[in-house]
Protein backbone atom coordinates (compact mmCIF):
# COMPACT_ATOMS: atom_id res chain seq x y z
CA UNK A 1 0.00 0.00 0.00
CA UNK A 2 1.44 3.37 -1.02
CA UNK A 3 -0.70 5.65 1.12
CA UNK A 4 -3.50 5.16 3.57
CA UNK A 5 -4.51 8.70 4.51
CA UNK A 6 -5.84 11.25 2.04
CA UNK A 7 -7.39 14.69 2.06
CA UNK A 8 -10.94 14.16 0.85
CA UNK A 9 -12.80 16.85 -1.06
CA UNK A 10 -16.42 15.69 -1.36
CA UNK A 11 -17.66 18.47 -3.64
CA UNK A 12 -21.17 19.89 -3.42
CA UNK A 13 -23.02 16.96 -5.03
CA UNK A 14 -21.89 14.15 -2.77
CA UNK A 15 -24.35 14.74 0.05
CA UNK A 16 -27.35 14.29 -2.23
CA UNK A 17 -25.78 11.58 -4.40
CA UNK A 18 -27.47 8.17 -4.43
CA UNK A 19 -25.36 6.28 -1.92
CA UNK A 20 -21.97 7.33 -3.30
CA UNK A 21 -20.85 8.77 0.05
CA UNK A 22 -22.00 5.75 2.05
CA UNK A 23 -20.38 3.28 -0.33
CA UNK A 24 -17.08 5.21 -0.55
CA UNK A 25 -16.87 5.24 3.23
CA UNK A 26 -17.71 1.53 3.42
CA UNK A 27 -15.11 0.53 0.83
CA UNK A 28 -12.45 2.81 2.32
CA UNK A 29 -13.00 1.29 5.78
CA UNK A 30 -12.70 -2.23 4.41
CA UNK A 31 -9.45 -1.31 2.66
CA UNK A 32 -8.01 0.48 5.66
CA UNK A 33 -7.99 3.85 3.92
CA UNK A 34 -8.62 7.01 5.89
CA UNK A 35 -10.37 9.82 4.04
CA UNK A 36 -10.10 13.09 5.91
CA UNK A 37 -12.75 15.58 4.80
CA UNK A 38 -11.26 19.02 4.17
CA UNK A 39 -12.45 21.61 6.70
CA UNK A 40 -14.27 24.65 5.33
CA UNK A 41 -14.17 23.50 1.70
CA UNK A 42 -15.96 25.48 -1.01
CA UNK A 43 -17.54 24.78 -4.38
CA UNK A 44 -14.90 24.22 -7.08
CA UNK A 45 -16.85 26.47 -9.45
CA UNK A 46 -17.23 23.70 -12.02
CA UNK A 47 -17.80 24.82 -15.60
CA UNK A 48 -20.00 27.70 -14.52
CA UNK A 49 -17.28 29.82 -12.93
CA UNK A 50 -15.08 29.54 -16.02
CA UNK A 51 -18.03 30.66 -18.12
CA UNK A 52 -18.43 33.82 -16.08
CA UNK A 53 -15.04 34.98 -14.83
CA UNK A 54 -11.79 33.10 -15.23
CA UNK A 55 -9.93 34.65 -12.29
CA UNK A 56 -12.84 33.98 -9.96
CA UNK A 57 -12.88 30.38 -11.19
CA UNK A 58 -9.16 29.99 -10.54
CA UNK A 59 -9.43 31.47 -7.05
CA UNK A 60 -12.29 29.13 -6.08
CA UNK A 61 -10.37 26.05 -7.18
CA UNK A 62 -7.13 27.32 -5.62
CA UNK A 63 -8.87 27.90 -2.29
CA UNK A 64 -9.82 24.21 -2.08
CA UNK A 65 -6.27 23.12 -2.90
CA UNK A 66 -4.83 25.69 -0.47
CA UNK A 67 -6.86 24.19 2.39
CA UNK A 68 -5.54 20.71 1.62
CA UNK A 69 -2.00 22.08 1.55
CA UNK A 70 -2.39 23.91 4.86
CA UNK A 71 -3.70 20.70 6.43
CA UNK A 72 -0.38 19.10 5.57
CA UNK A 73 -1.51 16.81 2.75
CA UNK A 74 0.35 16.25 -0.49
CA UNK A 75 -2.60 14.50 -2.17
CA UNK A 76 -6.22 15.49 -2.44
CA UNK A 77 -8.84 13.03 -3.68
CA UNK A 78 -12.32 13.76 -4.94
CA UNK A 79 -15.13 11.45 -6.06
CA UNK A 80 -16.52 13.86 -8.67
CA UNK A 81 -15.31 14.08 -12.27
CA UNK A 82 -16.15 17.77 -12.50
CA UNK A 83 -14.32 18.67 -9.27
CA UNK A 84 -11.38 16.58 -10.41
CA UNK A 85 -11.23 18.20 -13.81
CA UNK A 86 -11.79 21.73 -12.50
CA UNK A 87 -9.08 21.59 -9.85
CA UNK A 88 -6.55 20.09 -12.24
CA UNK A 89 -7.40 22.60 -14.92
CA UNK A 90 -7.02 25.52 -12.50
CA UNK A 91 -3.72 24.14 -11.23
CA UNK A 92 -2.40 23.89 -14.78
CA UNK A 93 -3.54 27.36 -15.84
CA UNK A 94 -2.17 29.04 -12.71
CA UNK A 95 1.17 27.35 -13.26
CA UNK A 96 1.39 27.97 -17.01
CA UNK A 97 0.39 31.59 -16.75
CA UNK A 98 2.65 32.14 -13.75
CA UNK A 99 -0.08 33.83 -11.70
CA UNK A 100 0.27 32.07 -8.33
CA UNK A 101 1.13 35.37 -6.69
CA UNK A 102 -1.93 37.16 -8.07
CA UNK A 103 -4.22 34.30 -7.06
CA UNK A 104 -2.72 34.38 -3.59
CA UNK A 105 -3.56 38.07 -3.28
CA UNK A 106 -7.20 37.06 -3.60
CA UNK A 107 -6.87 34.02 -1.32
CA UNK A 108 -5.22 36.18 1.30
CA UNK A 109 -8.55 37.96 1.79
CA UNK A 110 -9.84 34.65 3.13
CA UNK A 111 -6.69 33.75 5.07
CA UNK A 112 -5.51 31.10 2.57
CA UNK A 113 -2.32 30.52 0.64
CA UNK A 114 -1.73 28.28 -2.37
CA UNK A 115 1.59 26.83 -3.54
CA UNK A 116 0.44 24.48 -6.31
CA UNK A 117 2.27 21.48 -4.88
CA UNK A 118 -0.80 19.41 -4.06
CA UNK A 119 -1.57 16.43 -6.28
CA UNK A 120 -5.22 16.19 -7.25
CA UNK A 121 -6.55 12.68 -7.82
CA UNK A 122 -9.87 10.94 -8.38
CA UNK A 123 -10.99 8.48 -5.73
CA UNK A 124 -11.02 5.69 -8.29
CA UNK A 125 -7.22 5.94 -8.55
CA UNK A 126 -6.89 5.25 -4.85
CA UNK A 127 -9.03 2.12 -5.01
CA UNK A 128 -7.60 0.91 -8.33
CA UNK A 129 -3.93 1.87 -8.11
CA UNK A 130 -2.86 2.45 -4.51
CA UNK A 131 -4.24 -0.86 -3.34
CA UNK A 132 -2.43 -4.02 -4.38
CA UNK A 133 -4.65 -6.34 -6.39
CA UNK A 134 -4.25 -9.15 -3.84
CA UNK A 135 -5.22 -6.77 -1.09
CA UNK A 136 -8.40 -5.90 -2.92
CA UNK A 137 -9.36 -9.45 -3.85
CA UNK A 138 -8.76 -10.61 -0.28
CA UNK A 139 -11.70 -8.50 0.91
CA UNK A 140 -13.99 -9.43 -1.99
CA UNK A 141 -15.93 -12.06 -0.08
CA UNK A 142 -19.17 -11.93 -2.09
CA UNK A 143 -18.23 -11.55 -5.76
CA UNK A 144 -21.11 -11.16 -8.19
CA UNK A 145 -21.77 -14.27 -10.19
CA UNK A 146 -21.91 -13.01 -13.74
CA UNK A 147 -23.51 -9.59 -13.41
CA UNK A 148 -22.85 -7.94 -16.78
CA UNK A 149 -21.99 -4.31 -16.10
CA UNK A 150 -21.35 -1.40 -18.46
CA UNK A 151 -18.57 0.81 -17.05
CA UNK A 152 -19.53 4.44 -17.66
CA UNK A 153 -16.68 6.91 -17.18
CA UNK A 154 -18.18 10.13 -18.49
CA UNK A 155 -16.13 12.94 -19.98
CA UNK A 156 -14.16 14.86 -17.47
CA UNK A 157 -12.23 12.04 -15.79
CA UNK A 158 -9.86 11.77 -18.70
CA UNK A 159 -10.50 14.81 -20.89
CA UNK A 160 -8.35 16.76 -21.18
CA UNK A 161 -6.72 17.80 -17.91
CA UNK A 162 -6.70 14.36 -16.34
CA UNK A 163 -3.80 12.12 -17.20
CA UNK A 164 -4.87 8.98 -15.42
CA UNK A 165 -6.21 7.04 -18.37
CA UNK A 166 -6.98 7.10 -22.10
CA UNK A 167 -9.18 10.08 -23.06
CA UNK A 168 -11.63 7.99 -25.07
CA UNK A 169 -11.15 4.42 -23.89
CA UNK A 170 -10.28 4.36 -20.20
CA UNK A 171 -10.12 0.98 -18.44
CA UNK A 172 -9.33 1.84 -14.82
CA UNK A 173 -12.84 0.93 -13.59
CA UNK A 174 -12.98 -2.28 -15.61
CA UNK A 175 -10.33 -3.94 -13.45
CA UNK A 176 -12.08 -3.03 -10.19
CA UNK A 177 -15.40 -4.37 -11.44
CA UNK A 178 -13.79 -7.58 -12.63
CA UNK A 179 -12.10 -8.01 -9.26
CA UNK A 180 -15.56 -7.63 -7.73
CA UNK A 181 -16.77 -10.54 -9.84
CA UNK A 182 -18.74 -8.51 -12.37
CA UNK A 183 -18.63 -9.26 -16.05
CA UNK A 184 -17.52 -6.04 -17.76
CA UNK A 185 -19.05 -5.55 -21.20
CA UNK A 186 -17.36 -3.76 -24.09
CA UNK A 187 -19.00 -0.39 -23.91
CA UNK A 188 -18.66 2.00 -26.82
CA UNK A 189 -20.51 4.73 -24.95
CA UNK A 190 -18.21 4.64 -21.93
CA UNK A 191 -17.01 8.21 -22.46
CA UNK A 192 -20.00 9.65 -24.29
CA UNK A 193 -21.32 12.82 -22.70
CA UNK A 194 -24.39 12.65 -20.41
CA UNK A 195 -25.13 16.34 -20.97
CA UNK A 196 -23.74 17.33 -17.57
CA UNK A 197 -25.21 20.58 -16.23
CA UNK A 198 -26.96 21.18 -19.55
CA UNK A 199 -29.57 18.70 -18.29
CA UNK A 200 -30.86 21.50 -16.06
CA UNK A 201 -31.06 24.21 -18.69
CA UNK A 202 -31.55 22.25 -21.91
CA UNK A 203 -33.06 18.91 -21.04
CA UNK A 204 -34.51 18.24 -24.51
CA UNK A 205 -31.05 18.44 -26.05
CA UNK A 206 -29.61 16.07 -23.45
CA UNK A 207 -32.21 13.29 -23.54
CA UNK A 208 -30.92 11.81 -26.82
CA UNK A 209 -27.43 11.70 -25.30
CA UNK A 210 -28.60 9.66 -22.33
CA UNK A 211 -30.72 7.49 -24.62
CA UNK A 212 -27.64 6.63 -26.69
CA UNK A 213 -25.68 5.63 -23.57
CA UNK A 214 -28.46 3.47 -22.12
CA UNK A 215 -29.15 1.86 -25.50
CA UNK A 216 -25.52 0.91 -26.01
CA UNK A 217 -25.35 -0.59 -22.51
CA UNK A 218 -28.42 -2.72 -23.16
CA UNK A 219 -27.24 -3.75 -26.62
CA UNK A 220 -24.01 -5.03 -25.08
CA UNK A 221 -26.02 -7.17 -22.66
CA UNK A 222 -25.40 -5.09 -19.53
CA UNK A 223 -27.84 -5.49 -16.65
CA UNK A 224 -26.48 -2.45 -14.83
CA UNK A 225 -24.38 0.64 -15.47
CA UNK A 226 -21.52 1.54 -13.14
CA UNK A 227 -20.67 5.23 -12.69
CA UNK A 228 -17.96 7.27 -10.98
CA UNK A 229 -19.45 10.78 -10.88
CA UNK A 230 -22.50 12.20 -9.07
CA UNK A 231 -23.71 14.19 -12.07
CA UNK A 232 -23.28 11.30 -14.50
CA UNK A 233 -25.20 8.99 -12.15
CA UNK A 234 -27.98 11.52 -11.70
CA UNK A 235 -28.37 12.22 -15.41
CA UNK A 236 -28.35 8.56 -16.45
CA UNK A 237 -30.69 7.53 -13.63
CA UNK A 238 -33.20 10.34 -13.23
CA UNK A 239 -34.52 10.64 -16.80
CA UNK A 240 -35.17 6.97 -17.49
CA UNK A 241 -38.91 7.41 -16.97
CA UNK A 242 -38.94 10.14 -19.66
CA UNK A 243 -37.12 7.76 -21.98
CA UNK A 244 -39.14 4.63 -21.19
CA UNK A 245 -35.99 2.87 -19.99
CA UNK A 246 -35.21 0.89 -16.88
CA UNK A 247 -31.61 -0.13 -16.30
CA UNK A 248 -30.05 0.37 -12.86
CA UNK A 249 -27.32 3.00 -12.64
CA UNK A 250 -25.14 2.58 -9.57
CA UNK A 251 -21.73 3.70 -8.36
CA UNK A 252 -18.70 1.47 -8.77
CA UNK A 253 -18.21 1.73 -5.01
CA UNK A 254 -21.69 0.30 -4.44
CA UNK A 255 -20.78 -2.76 -6.50
CA UNK A 256 -17.46 -3.02 -4.66
CA UNK A 257 -19.18 -2.66 -1.30
CA UNK A 258 -21.75 -5.37 -2.05
CA UNK A 259 -18.96 -7.64 -3.25
CA UNK A 260 -17.20 -6.97 0.06
CA UNK A 261 -20.24 -8.28 1.87
CA UNK A 262 -21.84 -4.93 2.59
CA UNK A 263 -25.61 -4.81 2.95
CA UNK A 264 -27.71 -2.87 0.42
CA UNK A 265 -28.35 -0.30 3.14
CA UNK A 266 -24.68 0.06 3.99
CA UNK A 267 -23.91 1.01 0.40
CA UNK A 268 -27.02 3.19 0.03
CA UNK A 269 -28.36 1.31 -2.97
CA UNK A 270 -31.96 2.19 -2.05
CA UNK A 271 -31.23 5.82 -2.97
CA UNK A 272 -31.01 5.29 -6.72
CA UNK A 273 -34.19 6.11 -8.64
CA UNK A 274 -34.39 3.35 -11.25
CA UNK A 275 -34.86 0.18 -9.18
CA UNK A 276 -31.58 -1.68 -8.75
CA UNK A 277 -33.30 -5.09 -8.49
CA UNK A 278 -30.99 -6.76 -11.01
CA UNK A 279 -27.97 -5.76 -8.94
CA UNK A 280 -29.52 -6.82 -5.65
CA UNK A 281 -30.66 -10.17 -7.04
CA UNK A 282 -27.18 -10.88 -8.38
CA UNK A 283 -25.71 -9.92 -5.01
CA UNK A 284 -28.33 -11.92 -3.11
CA UNK A 285 -27.47 -15.02 -5.08
CA UNK A 286 -24.19 -15.36 -3.24
CA UNK A 287 -25.41 -14.53 0.25
Amino acid at each position, binding site marked *: MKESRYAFYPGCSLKTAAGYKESIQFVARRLGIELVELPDWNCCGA*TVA*FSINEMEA*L*AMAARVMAIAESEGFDQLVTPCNACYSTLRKAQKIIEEEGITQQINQALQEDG*KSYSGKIKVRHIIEVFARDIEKEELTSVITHPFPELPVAPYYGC*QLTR*PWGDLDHPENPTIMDGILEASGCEVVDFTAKTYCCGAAQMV*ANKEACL*PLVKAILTDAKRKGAKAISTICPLCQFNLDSVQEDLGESIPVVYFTQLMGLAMGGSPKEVGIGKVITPADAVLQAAKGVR
Partner: protein
Amino acid sequence: MEATGLLKRLLELPGGDQLLRCIQCGTCTGSCPMAEAMDYGPRGLFALVKGGDIEEALHSNTFWFCASCYYCTVRCPREILITDQMYAFKRLAIEQGIKPKVSTLQMYTAFHETVKEDGRLSETKMMRKFLLGSPKDLIKNTSMASLGMKLLRRGRMELKGESVADPDKFRVMLSKARTISPEKDEITSMDSGGAA
Protein backbone atom coordinates in the same frame (compact mmCIF):
# COMPACT_ATOMS: atom_id res chain seq x y z
CA MET B 1 -5.89 39.11 -40.85
CA GLU B 2 -7.10 42.62 -40.06
CA ALA B 3 -9.16 42.62 -36.90
CA THR B 4 -10.98 45.50 -35.21
CA GLY B 5 -13.49 46.02 -32.43
CA LEU B 6 -14.96 42.94 -30.79
CA LEU B 7 -13.12 40.55 -33.03
CA LYS B 8 -9.86 42.14 -32.00
CA ARG B 9 -10.94 41.77 -28.36
CA LEU B 10 -11.66 38.09 -28.85
CA LEU B 11 -8.38 37.39 -30.59
CA GLU B 12 -6.48 39.25 -27.90
CA LEU B 13 -7.90 37.08 -25.12
CA PRO B 14 -5.40 34.55 -23.77
CA GLY B 15 -5.20 31.87 -26.42
CA GLY B 16 -7.86 33.73 -28.42
CA ASP B 17 -5.75 33.70 -31.54
CA GLN B 18 -5.70 29.90 -31.46
CA LEU B 19 -8.84 29.72 -33.51
CA LEU B 20 -7.02 31.30 -36.43
CA ARG B 21 -5.21 27.98 -36.68
CA CYS B 22 -8.50 26.24 -37.48
CA ILE B 23 -8.37 24.41 -40.81
CA GLN B 24 -12.14 23.82 -40.94
CA CYS B 25 -11.79 20.03 -40.87
CA GLY B 26 -14.98 19.63 -38.84
CA THR B 27 -13.60 17.08 -36.38
CA CYS B 28 -15.00 19.25 -33.57
CA THR B 29 -18.53 19.37 -34.93
CA GLY B 30 -18.39 15.68 -35.80
CA SER B 31 -17.39 14.93 -32.20
CA CYS B 32 -19.78 17.32 -30.48
CA PRO B 33 -22.68 15.61 -28.69
CA MET B 34 -24.65 18.87 -28.69
CA ALA B 35 -24.01 19.84 -32.33
CA GLU B 36 -27.56 18.96 -33.40
CA ALA B 37 -28.98 21.49 -30.97
CA MET B 38 -26.63 24.25 -32.14
CA ASP B 39 -27.33 26.78 -34.89
CA TYR B 40 -23.64 26.62 -35.81
CA GLY B 41 -21.41 23.74 -34.80
CA PRO B 42 -17.97 24.68 -33.48
CA ARG B 43 -16.50 24.52 -36.98
CA GLY B 44 -19.21 26.84 -38.27
CA LEU B 45 -18.61 29.22 -35.38
CA PHE B 46 -14.91 29.40 -36.19
CA ALA B 47 -15.74 29.96 -39.85
CA LEU B 48 -17.81 32.98 -38.84
CA VAL B 49 -14.94 34.39 -36.79
CA LYS B 50 -12.37 33.79 -39.49
CA GLY B 51 -14.75 35.45 -41.93
CA GLY B 52 -14.93 38.43 -39.61
CA ASP B 53 -18.58 38.09 -38.55
CA ILE B 54 -18.06 38.33 -34.81
CA GLU B 55 -21.57 39.72 -34.23
CA GLU B 56 -23.24 36.64 -35.70
CA ALA B 57 -20.78 34.44 -33.81
CA LEU B 58 -21.56 36.07 -30.47
CA HIS B 59 -25.32 35.78 -31.11
CA SER B 60 -25.09 32.09 -31.95
CA ASN B 61 -26.18 29.49 -29.41
CA THR B 62 -23.11 27.29 -30.00
CA PHE B 63 -21.20 28.01 -26.81
CA TRP B 64 -24.38 28.09 -24.68
CA PHE B 65 -25.02 24.48 -25.64
CA CYS B 66 -21.43 23.38 -24.93
CA ALA B 67 -21.51 20.70 -22.20
CA SER B 68 -17.73 20.89 -21.58
CA CYS B 69 -17.14 17.26 -22.56
CA TYR B 70 -13.81 18.21 -24.17
CA TYR B 71 -14.20 15.71 -27.03
CA CYS B 72 -13.38 18.46 -29.55
CA THR B 73 -10.38 19.58 -27.53
CA VAL B 74 -8.71 16.16 -27.37
CA ARG B 75 -9.45 15.44 -31.03
CA CYS B 76 -8.58 18.77 -32.69
CA PRO B 77 -5.65 18.10 -35.04
CA ARG B 78 -4.58 21.73 -34.68
CA GLU B 79 -4.53 21.45 -30.87
CA ILE B 80 -6.94 24.30 -30.37
CA LEU B 81 -8.35 24.31 -26.84
CA ILE B 82 -11.85 24.49 -28.26
CA THR B 83 -13.81 24.05 -25.03
CA ASP B 84 -11.86 26.95 -23.55
CA GLN B 85 -12.66 29.03 -26.63
CA MET B 86 -16.32 28.35 -25.78
CA TYR B 87 -15.77 29.77 -22.29
CA ALA B 88 -14.15 32.84 -23.83
CA PHE B 89 -17.16 33.32 -26.14
CA LYS B 90 -19.53 33.02 -23.18
CA ARG B 91 -17.62 35.59 -21.14
CA LEU B 92 -17.47 38.03 -24.05
CA ALA B 93 -21.19 37.58 -24.79
CA ILE B 94 -22.05 38.18 -21.12
CA GLU B 95 -19.84 41.26 -21.09
CA GLN B 96 -21.58 42.56 -24.21
CA GLY B 97 -24.99 41.98 -22.63
CA ILE B 98 -26.03 39.52 -25.32
CA LYS B 99 -28.89 37.43 -23.96
CA PRO B 100 -29.00 33.88 -25.31
CA LYS B 101 -32.35 32.40 -26.34
CA VAL B 102 -31.60 29.22 -24.41
CA SER B 103 -31.78 29.06 -20.60
CA THR B 104 -28.09 28.29 -19.98
CA LEU B 105 -27.23 31.77 -18.75
CA GLN B 106 -30.12 31.77 -16.26
CA MET B 107 -28.84 28.44 -14.94
CA TYR B 108 -25.31 29.79 -14.66
CA THR B 109 -26.59 32.88 -12.88
CA ALA B 110 -28.56 30.78 -10.38
CA PHE B 111 -25.51 28.60 -9.74
CA HIS B 112 -23.18 31.57 -9.42
CA GLU B 113 -25.48 33.48 -7.06
CA THR B 114 -25.93 30.44 -4.83
CA VAL B 115 -22.20 29.84 -4.58
CA LYS B 116 -21.52 33.53 -3.95
CA GLU B 117 -23.99 33.46 -1.06
CA ASP B 118 -22.82 30.28 0.65
CA GLY B 119 -19.47 29.29 -0.86
CA ARG B 120 -21.08 25.93 -1.59
CA LEU B 121 -23.79 24.83 -3.96
CA SER B 122 -27.12 23.72 -2.59
CA GLU B 123 -28.85 22.11 -5.55
CA THR B 124 -32.27 22.86 -4.07
CA LYS B 125 -31.48 26.53 -3.69
CA MET B 126 -29.98 26.73 -7.16
CA MET B 127 -33.02 25.09 -8.75
CA ARG B 128 -35.34 27.45 -6.90
CA LYS B 129 -33.41 30.46 -8.17
CA PHE B 130 -33.21 29.04 -11.68
CA LEU B 131 -36.91 28.29 -12.00
CA LEU B 132 -37.96 31.61 -10.49
CA GLY B 133 -35.61 33.40 -12.88
CA SER B 134 -36.81 31.37 -15.84
CA PRO B 135 -40.58 30.82 -15.61
CA LYS B 136 -40.71 29.14 -19.02
CA ASP B 137 -38.59 26.35 -17.60
CA LEU B 138 -40.88 26.09 -14.60
CA ILE B 139 -43.85 25.50 -16.89
CA LYS B 140 -41.92 23.22 -19.23
CA ASN B 141 -40.58 20.98 -16.51
CA THR B 142 -43.75 19.38 -15.25
CA SER B 143 -41.77 16.25 -14.38
CA MET B 144 -39.62 18.32 -12.02
CA ALA B 145 -42.11 18.04 -9.15
CA SER B 146 -42.31 14.28 -9.43
CA LEU B 147 -38.52 14.03 -9.57
CA GLY B 148 -38.34 16.26 -6.49
CA MET B 149 -40.67 13.88 -4.64
CA LYS B 150 -38.54 10.90 -5.60
CA LEU B 151 -35.42 12.60 -4.29
CA LEU B 152 -37.19 13.67 -1.11
CA ARG B 153 -38.40 10.12 -0.41
CA ARG B 154 -34.85 8.85 -0.85
CA GLY B 155 -33.41 11.40 1.55
CA ARG B 156 -31.65 13.17 -1.30
CA MET B 157 -33.25 16.60 -1.07
CA GLU B 158 -31.05 19.07 0.70
CA LEU B 159 -33.41 20.95 2.97
CA LYS B 160 -30.82 22.91 4.86
CA GLY B 161 -27.94 24.21 2.77
CA GLU B 162 -24.35 24.21 3.97
CA SER B 163 -21.92 27.07 3.72
CA VAL B 164 -18.26 27.85 4.18
CA ALA B 165 -17.29 29.08 7.65
CA ASP B 166 -17.20 32.75 6.66
CA PRO B 167 -19.18 33.51 3.50
CA ASP B 168 -18.35 37.22 3.76
CA LYS B 169 -14.64 36.57 3.51
CA PHE B 170 -15.29 34.15 0.65
CA ARG B 171 -17.11 36.88 -1.25
CA VAL B 172 -14.30 39.37 -0.62
CA MET B 173 -11.90 36.80 -2.05
CA LEU B 174 -14.04 36.49 -5.19
CA SER B 175 -14.26 40.27 -5.60
CA LYS B 176 -10.53 40.56 -5.25
CA ALA B 177 -10.04 37.79 -7.82
CA ARG B 178 -12.20 39.69 -10.32
CA THR B 179 -9.78 42.59 -10.15
CA ILE B 180 -6.81 40.46 -11.21
CA SER B 181 -5.67 41.20 -14.71
CA PRO B 182 -2.51 39.19 -14.97
CA GLU B 183 0.05 39.79 -17.62
CA LYS B 184 -0.65 36.52 -19.24
CA ASP B 185 1.66 34.72 -21.51
CA GLU B 186 0.14 32.68 -24.26
CA ILE B 187 -0.84 29.19 -23.19
CA THR B 188 2.56 27.69 -23.49
CA SER B 189 1.77 24.04 -24.07
CA MET B 190 0.47 24.73 -27.55
CA ASP B 191 2.38 25.72 -30.61
CA SER B 192 1.27 29.22 -31.49
CA GLY B 193 2.58 29.04 -35.02
CA GLY B 194 0.43 28.82 -38.10
CA ALA B 195 -1.87 31.72 -37.28
CA ALA B 196 -3.35 33.31 -40.36
